[in-house]
């Protein structure tokens, strides 16, 4: 008889970033059913689902509801950093843990959170290290107006300066805003070497479409000259971008191998699936394991997951992940490069300018 364990699932099934949230939801549900179907797993997971509907103010109350109305001590959920930061106080109060399976801006290591997708040394830093020598160091930075865009662009400003480049512009749009004409006009005027896109959801799709239009009139803005770089773009959102995305770059721990039929559709799905896989291993070892038991369980352990063999750093509770750079080709990505087992460095404490961009810039002494 398998022991039945409830876990929370907290994703917005509607709203401006629903494609991402639905990919995560699919990964979680698929993993739960695979764990339950596996006779060797020893546990049966029961999903306690809540849907904040893309409304930021619903996250904390619904997380609280999961933890009060069920026996769940672990919640798989949250897409935006804003929503993650909303639920953290609830987790701290209830002694619960969040399994967070989306890329984020770093500079956090809460013991109530397990960070299962990339942080900046696993997305932004390797992506710029790849792009700067090939396209140039002058960038234009875009973001949705909340912490992911602000913080990722802040790190990008420093990286660009370290690479000897200039930030030619930095613009933010409210989440859900689709009028990008001003951004396009500024990019056209400043002619950067690349565009760092930290817009999310509908704003991002509108930008890709308008930028492809710009490239039709001015070839400088084609992906072979001035690519759009994203740190969170996956197959989950390519249907909304379609041909406008072709040739532009993204980075993540996983891109779908098109030859494999049953592979997860995106890194969001794969990371969420991996989160539930690891959580199931933890709960199979100790069905009552709470957040406090996690560091000891993560120590000297690695897990076979859909992302490959991964370890979770017990100090920061961030996953060691592969880093893959991909080029959009229709509804999938072509692999540009892949690095195995990149250890997490959420505070960029080990960032080294020379290692990232080669020899130091020449300095004007005055």
């Amino acid at each position, binding site marked *: 008889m398998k022991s039945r364990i409830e876990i929370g699932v907290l994703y917005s099934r509607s709203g401006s970033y629903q494609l991402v949230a639905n990919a995560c939801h699919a990964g979680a549900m698929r993993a739960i059913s695979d764990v339950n179907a596996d006779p060797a797993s020893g546990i049966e997971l029961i999903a306690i689902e809540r849907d904040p509907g893309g409304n930021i103010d619903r996250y904390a109350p619904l997380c609280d509801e999961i933890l009060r109305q069920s026996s769940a001590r672990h919640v798989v959920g949250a897409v935006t950093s804003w929503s993650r930061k909303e639920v953290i106080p609830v987790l701290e109060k209830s002694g619960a843990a969040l399994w967070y399976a989306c890329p984020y801006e770093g500079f956090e290591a809460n013991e109530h959170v397990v960070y299962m997708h990339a942080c900046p040394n696993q997305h932004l830093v390797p992506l710029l290290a790849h792009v700067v020598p090939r396209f140039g160091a002058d960038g234009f930075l875009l973001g949705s107006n909340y912490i992911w865009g602000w913080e990722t662009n*802040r790190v990008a*400003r420093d990286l660009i300066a370290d690479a000897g480049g200039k930030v030619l512009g930095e613009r933010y749009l409210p989440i859900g805003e689709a009028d990008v004409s001003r951004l396009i006009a500024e990019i056209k005027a400043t002619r950067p070497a690349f565009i760092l896109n930290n817009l999310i959801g509908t704003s991002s799709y509108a930008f890709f479409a308008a930028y492809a239009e710009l490239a039709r009139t001015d070839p400088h803005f084609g992906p072979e000259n001035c690519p759009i770089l994203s740190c969170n773009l996956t197959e989950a959102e390519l249907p909304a971008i379609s041909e406008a995305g072709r040739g532009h770059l993204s980075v993540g721990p996983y891109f779908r191998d098109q030859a494999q039929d049953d592979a997860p559709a995106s890194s969001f799905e794969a990371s969420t699936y991996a989160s539930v896989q690891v959580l199931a291993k933890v709960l199979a070892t100790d069905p009552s394991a709470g957040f406090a038991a996690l560091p000891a369980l993560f120590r000297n352990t690695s897990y076979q997951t859909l992302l490959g063999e991964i370890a979770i750093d017990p100090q920061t509770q961030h996953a060691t992940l592969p880093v893959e750079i991909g080029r959009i080709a229709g509804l999938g990505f072509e692999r540009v490069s892949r690095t195995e087992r990149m250890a997490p460095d959420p505070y960029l404490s080990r960032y080294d300018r020379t290692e990232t961009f080669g020899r130091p810039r020449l300095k004007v002494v005055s």
Partner: protein
Amino acid sequence: MSRVSHIPNLGGAKAFVLHRPHANVSAISRQLAAIGLAVTDCWPELPAEALAADFVFFDVDLGFDQQFPWPRGAAPMPTIALIGSEAPGRIEWALSHKADAQLLKPVGNAGVYSALLIARQSFAARRQLADEITALQQRVAERQTIVRAVAALSSQGVDDERAYAQLRTLAMNWQVSLEEAARRVVALTEKEGGFDQSHRA
């Protein structure tokens, strides 16, 4: 002008936590280790190696002056006060140690990172200000030398204003500060009983 990178490379920095063994110390150590610092906790005294630390966290509730290998308020690195009881006397004591940032106890899951960045910046600002004040004080202390140099120059028959202008020209020609030029003029005057214009460089 050179640009300072804003990515705070805290990896490998050394922090000492001066606090009796307690859950608060574990909470601080956990956060410091996650950020990438090497942590040493100690009580009741800071060891000599603490002089080479990059950051020192110190307990305010039970702290006393003799714990520190430096005079009160003269820590050679950024310090962070760990405040539990908000008794005015204890806060006064923490202030006398010129803590650069504070962290309230009980320490939870956050707070250490911002304390590190705030402490580092306010320590650097305080040190820069102190250096500027020292330099200015040295210049003020040379006022008398300048008066003596102007007097020596004007003894050759020019008025004070011209003598002062002459001193400035000498400083420029010698490529030294006005105070240094004045010291040289006074020294030459004392040696030879008068300032001879042939010494002009």
